[in-house]
């Protein structure tokens, strides 16, 4: 296979599977399982290819820009593809046991479409293509939430739909402005020609706003907790783990690659983004601490963790020689949070299923009632807190060293405070796990082994990311747009 075609295959595979999934539950499941097996292979093939040959560029069907669609895979894309493949595979495994023929009738189709669009976002070099993929992503994500078919889920899905559409359309408006100004849609080309004039900055503003709404950054986050909490568990995992990251990924491309903000000149705007991030960390954590049901707690923790990602922006601007460290830390946070958060959601789903309730006190004694799931949750939670050894720890180490190395104490304090608050809400679950109350001895509903295994698998990946940080970060390459 030609090395540059890896990217195309990673989109085509889930798409083809989705087509098969129209055939019904059984066909969909087979297709999804196959995807779950092949996608990681493809992803790691892509990783290797990028590692060996540098960024890959693939004109789809031989048509190049401007009319044709060009795919572009660099280190960042490859890492996102890999994270998607791993989380997707585990979720697929989990979903196979979670749903049955009735409840999961449409799940496979929607999920595979979502997978397609995720990969599509990560390999697009073309902003309009990006828009299409984002729309597909948003719609399938909404559909996944709606699959839960409860009242709460429907309300949440509706709200999600509206926000997602507003975000996409803002993005589309930005595309129009950019095209009007520069006459090209290619991210790469835009990166070469973009200038900070009024039209471009207006485009940047609306696109950023759109993507922020989709990423659910504070204070536009309110739609996220109910949506993620009321969705079916596998959906929650991918929504929190991957979907919000896709729009963040787009933001990275915009700010770093297209506008090259690390070169300077955007400090004030980056500061605003950072402030929002800091707000998210604090606000999300405090609200997570107030939750009394486990899935809402995890969902609010997503709000908080997304805040870390936004702290990346001011760090890039002010960190000087440490900017690259911040960049690595930010991306590593994306990847490790994806695994950790997905594993937490999956484990929480198992626990809720086992005890038949989602209130935190109902989880009393879960530590010995459901040890594997609890272990998965614990590892995921600790990675979230930034406890070593875990991916979260590496990410926090990098971000923190960038902040401290460049003397930006405020951001360092936010990071530290966020860690402490995270420890607080993870503890809310842990404390019940070891409690010895009458509830702790109640028998549990059986939980399929596959579900527990899937959660543990992801948790172990989150853990393992703490040990193998060097290769992925090597692959990531230098900060885009750095002077």
């Amino acid at each position, binding site marked *: 296979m030609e090395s540059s075609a890896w990217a195309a295959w990673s989109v085509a595979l889930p798409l083809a599977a989705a087509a098969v999934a129209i055939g019904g539950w059984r066909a969909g499941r087979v297709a999804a399982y196959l995807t779950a097996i092949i996608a990681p292979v493809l992803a790691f093939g892509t990783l290797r290819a990028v590692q060996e040959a540098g960024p890959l560029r693939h004109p789809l069907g031989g048509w190049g820009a401007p009319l044709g669609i060009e795919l572009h895979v660099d280190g960042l894309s490859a890492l996102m593809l890999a994270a998607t493949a791993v989380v997707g595979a585990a979720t697929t495994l989990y979903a196979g046991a979670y749903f049955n023929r009735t409840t999961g009738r449409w799940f496979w189709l929607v999920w595979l479409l979502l997978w397609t669009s995720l990969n599509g976002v990560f390999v697009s070099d073309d902003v309009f293509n990006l828009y299409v993929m984002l729309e597909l992503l948003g719609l399938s994500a909404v559909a996944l939430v709606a699959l839960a078919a409860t009242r709460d889920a429907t309300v949440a899905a509706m709200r999600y739909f509206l926000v997602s559409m507003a975000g996409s359309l803002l993005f589309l408006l930005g595309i129009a402005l950019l095209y009007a100004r520069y006459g090209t849609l290619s991210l790469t080309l835009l990166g070469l020609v973009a200038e900070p004039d009024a039209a471009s900055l207006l485009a940047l503003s609306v696109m950023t706003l759109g993507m922020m709404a989709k990423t659910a950054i504070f204070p536009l986050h309110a739609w996220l907790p109910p949506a993620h909490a009321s969705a079916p568990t596998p959906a929650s995992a991918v929504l929190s783990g991957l979907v919000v990251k896709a729009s963040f990924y787009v933001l990275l491309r915009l700010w770093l690659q297209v506008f090259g903000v690390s070169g300077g000149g955007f400090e004030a705007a980056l500061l605003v983004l950072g402030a929002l991030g800091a707000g998210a960390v604090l606000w999300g954590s405090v609200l997570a601490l107030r939750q009394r049901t486990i899935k809402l707690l995890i969902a609010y923790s997503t709000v908080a963790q997304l805040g870390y990602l936004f702290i990346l922006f001011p760090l890039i601007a002010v960190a000087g020689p440490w900017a690259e460290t911040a960049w690595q830390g930010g991306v590593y946070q994306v990847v490790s949070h994806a695994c950790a958060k997905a594993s937490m959601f999956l484990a929480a789903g198992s626990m809720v299923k086992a005890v038949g309730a989602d209130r935190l006190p109902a989880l009393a004694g879960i530590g010995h009632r459901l040890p594997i799931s609890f272990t998965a949750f614990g590892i995921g939670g600790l990675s979230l807190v930034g*406890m070593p*050894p875990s991916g979260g720890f590496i990410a926090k180490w990098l971000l923190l*060293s960038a902040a401290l190395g460049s003397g930006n104490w405020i951001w360092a304090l936010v990071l530290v405070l966020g860690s*402490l608050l995270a420890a607080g809400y993870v503890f809310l679950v*842990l404390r019940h796990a*070891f*409690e*010895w109350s009458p509830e702790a001895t109640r028998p549990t509903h059986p939980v399929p082994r596959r579900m527990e295994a899937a959660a543990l698998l992801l948790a172990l990946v989150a853990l393992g990311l703490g040990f193998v*940080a060097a290769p992925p970060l090597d692959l990531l390459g230098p900060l885009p747009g750095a002077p």
Partner: protein
Amino acid sequence: MLLALRGMDALPIPILLSSLIPGLIIAFLREESVRTRRVLNLGGAGVKLALVGVMLWGVAEGERYEWRLSILPGLEISLVGDSLALLFITLSAVLWLVTTVYAIGYLEGSPNRNRFFSFFSLCVTATVGIAFAGDLFTFIIFYEALTWATYPLVVHRGSEAATRAGRIYLIYTVVGGTVLLFGIVWLYALTGTVAFVDGGALAHVPPEQYPALTGIFLVLLAGVGVKAALVPLHGWLPTAMVAPAPVSALLHAVAVVKAGAFGIVRILYSVFGIELSWTLGMAYVVIGAAAVTILYGSLRALYQDDLKRRLAFSTVSQVSYIALGTAMSGPLGAAGGLVHLVHQGLMKITLFFCAGNISETHGISRVSEMAGIGRRMPWTMAAFSIGALGMIGLPPIAGFISKWYLGVGAIEAGLPWIIGLLIASSLLNAAYFLPILKTAWLDPHPDASSGEGEDVIGIREAGPLLLLPTLATAALALGAGVFAEAEISPLRWVWMVVDRVFGLVQP
């Protein structure tokens, strides 16, 4: 085979795995598989002890074990088996074995033993990892792991009080760990190195960075000070004594407080270097904090009626001897502090075992209820007496040796007031330990209505699984003092550490 192992650079790995693997397997055993669990526990402890023995042998002959895994450019997980690390590791390995036996006896028939032993093993793994850490990065990895591995042990009983203690423990240690991380990253950002180097890694840092280094030192000290229970960061320790006796024993003797103390040693000697620490005036800060802690802990211990609580405050006080000694800039003080790492462990674990025996066998947890207990549990109380008298610093028990070198070292370092501190502390120790001994041995048992009745009270000792470990550690505590200058003794090893690691020469 042992010969082959001796030359193996990666020997730290199997030593870590010897407790990690049993811990992981036990977590997923069925609760009823008592035998498998025992085999795993004792087997792991035995294997670890054997491997540590091999390493001791190697290090004594000049070997240095080093294993590195690069995580990021400039950051690596490095496990280094040098003489200082082995001091701590040997203590952990020996006491782990003893405590495992004790815990098997202690928890017989109680629920959740899988979880207990699993985290117990993880806890030891983390402790050994802390000892092996070759840089601050590795150090904090295991340091944090220790926090979370210990939490389930503290809350093991699952009661209201246990949960509360666990919460307090976590608040303290997590904040402490975060502060430590902050300091480490700051150091890394400032100097680009977090490695442990004999004699200090920061010797080359230019003086204009000294203010920042001072800040870093304080932050790091605050971080490890939580686990080392330096006043006023000690609040968690007396609360955490609600944990089962073997946990308290391990917590106070090896795992958590020692990890903190060991951290202080590493920061003083391997990161900053004792000379720079004095230049920055930070060694004096450590000494001051330790002095306050020593006195405060003892004073608080005086007024505790709960036996374990009294012991806990005693730990607060005693552990700071380690920091005190190592912060002095002379070989004698260093030896006193380092050897106390081992000596305090042996004595305190004995005391906690005894407290466990008493409460398990007779349901007594308060000092005021202990009248005549010596008559009922002569062996346990004999062990307790050795531990208590050793803590006071009575020769020839191990505690005296530590105190002796601390005192002589203090004069050598030009800090004669520390002798006053040591003496005051000894007097306070006597003031809170001797009444226990008096109550236990000399006061009449409540069942004995009159003088004649005393013979009626028979012996009711703890079971062999509880008693044997207790006696073993008591014997070790006594032996470490009586044979302090023997070929194989903690003190001898410490002389070697002092000689090798710190480049100080034995007088």
